[in-house]
C-alpha cells in the first residue's frame, strides 16, 4: 500500500514539474511564464517530500530534511516569482510607476 502511494506521489510531483517546464517553454510572455512556476514549486516539493516521509517516517533524518526542503521551497518560491515579475516590469516600463491616465475633457 505504501509503495503504491509513493509511486502516485512521485508521479504527481514529477508531472507537476514537467507541466511547469512545458508551460515556461510555450507561454507567450514573461508574466505568463511566471504563472507556470507556481504549480511546479508547490506540488513538486510537497509530493516528493511526502513520498520520502512515507518511506522513512516523519521523524527520521531523511523525513525531517525533506519536510524542511518542501517548506523552504514553498516559502521562497513566491518571493522569487514576485522579484522576477518586478524586474521584468521595471525593464519594460523603466520604473514602478503605474501609467498615468489622461483626465477626460
Amino acid at each position: 500500500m505504501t509503495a503504491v502511494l509513493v509511486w502516485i506521489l512521485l508521479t504527481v510531483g514529477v508531472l507537476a514539474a514537467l507541466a511547469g517546464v512545458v508551460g515556461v517553454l510555450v507561454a507567450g510572455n514573461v508574466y505568463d511564464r511566471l504563472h507556470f512556476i507556481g504549480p511546479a514549486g508547490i506540488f513538486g516539493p510537497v509530493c516528493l517530500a511526502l513520498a520520502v516521509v512515507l518511506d522513512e517516517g516523519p521523524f527520521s533524518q531523511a523525513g525531517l530534511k525533506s519536510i524542511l526542503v518542501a517548506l523552504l521551497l514553498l516559502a521562497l518560491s513566491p518571493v522569487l516569482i514576485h522579484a522576477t515579475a518586478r524586474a521584468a516590469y521595471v525593464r519594460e516600463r523603466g520604473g514602478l510607476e503605474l501609467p498615468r491616465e489622461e483626465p477626460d475633457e
Partner: protein
Amino acid sequence: MTAYFAAATVLIAALAPLIVFSARAAAEDGLVALNLGGTIATLVFLVLAEATERQPFFDLAVVSAVLSFAGGLAYARFLERWL
C-alpha cells in the same frame, strides 16, 4: 531501478530544455527558466538522496533550495537595476 531513480531521471531530463531556453531567450525569460531549474535541481537532489539512501545528499537539497533562491534574487535585482 527504483521509483526514485526513475523520478530523478525524468527530472534531470526536464532540466535540458530549460538550459537551452535560458541560453537563447531574452534575459527576463531566461531568469524565469532559471528559477524553475533551481526548483527542479533541488527536487533532483532530494529524490537522489532517497534513491541512494545517502544522508549527505539531503543536505545538498537543503543548501540548493536556499542558494537557488539567493541566486535568482541576485539575478532579478541585477536585471532590474543595471542590465
